[in-house]
C-alpha cells in the first residue's frame, strides 16, 4: 500500500475569524482575522489603546467577542468559558495570589483539577526548576519575591496547567532593562524547548523583534500588518508601521519627484520613501544616488553605534553610523542614500 507524502505543513493552532468587540459605539476590535500556527511565537505589537489586551482577553475566554468566532485546532471555542479552555495567561499585573505561597500559586491549576497534594508538589518542584527558581522557593511567600522572581512564579503557574497555548499580556513591562533582556531570552528559549504556541503582546518593538517568529501590528482595533520581524522592519506596509518599528526618515514622492529635494525617483510614482537611519550615509559629491547638505545637530553615542540628528532642507533627519564615526555637532557634511534601493509605501 502506498501512502501519499503530505507536504510538511504547520497546523493552525488558533484561527480568529472576523473577531470584533464593541463597547457601545467604540470598536475596540474591528473584524480581526488571523491564523496562529502550532509552535509559533506570535507577537502582537501596538500602541496603548490599540485593542491588544481586549484581543488577548477574548482569546483567553475572559471576554466575549461582539461578532466573529474563534477556532482552536478547528473546534469552535468562541463561547467556551475561560476555565474550560486549554490555554493559560501570564497577566500584565501577574495577578499572583498573594495570600498563597509560591508553591501554592504554581500548583493552583493542578489543585483545581483535583490532583492529590504529593503529585502537585512534585510537579511544582519541576516547574520551579524549569523557570530557574529552584524548589527552595516552594514555601516562600509571594510577597517576599522580587519583581523578576514574581515573573517566574507567574510563568510557572501558567505552565502548570500544561496549556496548548500560552498568552502573555506585556508581562515584562514593569521590569528593569537588564532583567527584561534576560527574561526575553529565557522565554524564547523556553518556547523553543517546549514547542508550545506563545501569543505575546507588547508595546515594545524591541521585545517583539527579539522573540517573535511573526509579528502582528495593531492600530485602532485593526491588524495593520502581519509578517516576520525582518519583513515588518524592511517592508512596512505604511508610514504608521514604519514609524512604529523604530527611527525612520520618511520622504514624500509625488509624480516621481521627491517633494523635499529637487530629485527624481524612477521606481515610485506617488507615495513615501522609507529610509532607515542606517541607510543614510556621509557621501562624496561624486557618489551616485541622492545627496544633500546636512549640519550635524546632535550626536548620541549608543554604545556600538552613533545616532546623528541632521538638519537638512527636508527638516530633521536621523542617521546611524558605526561607533568609529568621528562627526561632531555643527559639522557640515553631505549625506545621501540610494532612492532606488529604498522601500516605499503608498500611504
Amino acid at each position, binding site marked *: 500500500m502506498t501512502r501519499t507524502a503530505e507536504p510538511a505543513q504547520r497546523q493552525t493552532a488558533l484561527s480568529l475569524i472576523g473577531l470584533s468587540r464593541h463597547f457601545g459605539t467604540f470598536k475596540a476590535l474591528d473584524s480581526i482575522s488571523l491564523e496562529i500556527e502550532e509552535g509559533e511565537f506570535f507577537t502582537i505589537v501596538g500602541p496603548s489603546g490599540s485593542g491588544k489586551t481586549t484581543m488577548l*482577553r477574548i482569546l*483567553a*475566554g*475572559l471576554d466575549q467577542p461582539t461578532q466573529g468566532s474563534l477556532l482552536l485546532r478547528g473546534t469552535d471555542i468562541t463561547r467556551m*468559558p*475561560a*476555565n*474550560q*479552555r486549554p*490555554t*493559560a*495567561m501570564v*497577566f500584565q*499585573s501577574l*495577578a*499572583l*495570589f498573594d*495570600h498563597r505561597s509560591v508553591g501554592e500559586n504554581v500548583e*493552583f*491549576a493542578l*489543585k*483545581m*483539577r483535583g490532583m492529590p497534594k504529593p503529585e502537585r508538589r512534585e510537579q511544582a518542584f519541576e516547574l520551579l526548576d524549569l523557570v530557574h527558581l529552584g524548589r527552595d522557593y516552594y514555601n516562600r511567600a509571594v510577597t517576599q519575591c522580587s519583581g523578576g522572581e514574581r515573573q517566574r512564579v507567574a510563568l510557572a*503557574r*501558567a505552565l*502548570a*496547567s500544561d496549556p496548548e497555548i500560552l498568552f502573555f499580556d506585556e508581562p515584562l513591562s514593569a521590569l528593569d532593562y537588564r532583567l527584561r533582556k534576560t527574561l526575553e531570552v529565557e522565554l524564547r528559549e523556553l518556547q523553543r524547548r517546549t514547542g508550545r504556541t506563545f501569543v505575546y503582546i507588547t508595546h515594545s518593538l524591541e521585545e517583539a523583534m527579539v522573540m517573535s517568529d511573526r509579528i502582528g501590528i495593531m492600530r485602532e482595533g485593526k491588524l495593520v500588518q502581519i509578517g516576520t520581524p525582518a519583513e515588518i522592519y524592511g517592508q512596512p506596509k505604511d508610514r504608521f508601521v514604519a514609524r512604529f518599528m523604530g527611527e525612520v526618515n520618511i520622504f514624500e514622492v509625488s509624480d516621481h519627484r521627491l517633494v523635499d529635494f529637487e530629485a527624481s525617483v524612477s521606481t515610485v510614482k506617488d507615495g513615501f520613501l522609507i529610509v532607515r537611519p542606517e541607510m543614510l550615509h556621509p557621501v562624496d559629491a561624486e557618489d551616485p544616488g541622492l545627496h544633500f547638505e546636512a549640519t550635524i545637530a546632535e550626536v548620541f553615542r549608543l554604545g556600538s553605534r552613533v545616532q546623528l540628528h541632521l538638519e537638512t532642507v527636508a527638516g530633521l533627519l536621523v542617521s546611524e553610523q558605526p561607533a568609529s564615526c568621528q562627526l561632531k555637532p555643527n559639522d557640515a557634511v553631505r549625506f545621501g542614500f540610494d532612492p532606488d534601493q529604498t522601500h516605499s509605501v503608498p500611504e
Partner: protein
Amino acid sequence: MTQQKLGLLFMAPVAAFLLIGFVSPILIVGWYSLMEPRSFDLNTVFTIANYRSAFSDGYGPPFFWSLSFAAVTTLTCLVLAWPTAKLLHRFAGRGAAVITALIAVPIFISESVRLFGMSLFLMPGGGILAGSMRALFDLSIGSVLNTKLAVYLGLVYVHFPFVLFPALLGVALIPQDRIDAARDLGASRWQVLREVELPLALPGLVIGALLTFVLCIGANAEAAILGGQTVTVLTRAVEQRFSYAQDWPMGAALTMLVIAMTAVFVFPALSRLDLNRLIRR
C-alpha cells in the same frame, strides 16, 4: 522634649479615659462577682459561690439561646451580605449608592423604634402584614410574633448592615485580575469563591461577623419586643439579677462570664486580621 515623652503625653487623655471609663468598671464588676451572694459590700472575703451557681442554677438556657441566636444570626447575615456586597460593588456608581443609602438610613433610627415597627408589621389579625393579606387577597395568615423565629428575624434585620458594610470593604479588596487568573487556570465559579474571593475578602467578613456576633450576645430588645416571654436571653438574665433579684454579685459573675466568652471569640479573630491592609485601601 523627646519623641517618646511627647508620645506619652499625647496618649495620656485616651489612657486616662480608658482607665476610668473602661478598666475600672470591669475591675469593680470583677470584684463584686467574688463577693457573698446578695451582699452589697466590696470587701476582701472572696468566694466563687456565684460562679458555681452560674453553672448549676439554671443559667444554661440564657447562655445557650444568646450564643445560638448570635451564631445563627451572624451566619445568616454573612450569607445574605456576600451576594449583596458583590452586586453593590459591581454596580458601584450606577445606582448602588441609592441601595446603600436605603440600607444605611434605618441605622440612624433608634433600634427599639424599628423593632416596634416590625412588631406592628408582624402583629396577628390587624397587623400590617396579616391585615394587608386579608384585605387584598382575602387570606388569613398566622403570625410569628412572640416566637423565637420573630427574635431571629429581628436580630437579622437589625444587624444586617453591620455585616454588609465591612463585607463591602472586603469585596473591594479582591482585584478583578485575581478572579480572571483563577478562571483562566481552570477554577469553576465555586472554586474561585473558595480559593480566591473569600480568602481575599476575609478581613472585611471577619470584622462584620465579629461586630454582629458580639452585638447579638448582648442583644436584649429583639427578645423583649418581638419574642414576648418565649425566651430569656443573657442580657435579660443579668439585668434581672441586678434589678429584680437585687443580687449584684450574681449579676457581676454572669457579666464576667459574658466578657470572658466574648474575649474567647474576639481576640483570636482580631489577631489574624491585618487592619493596616484594610485601611491602606
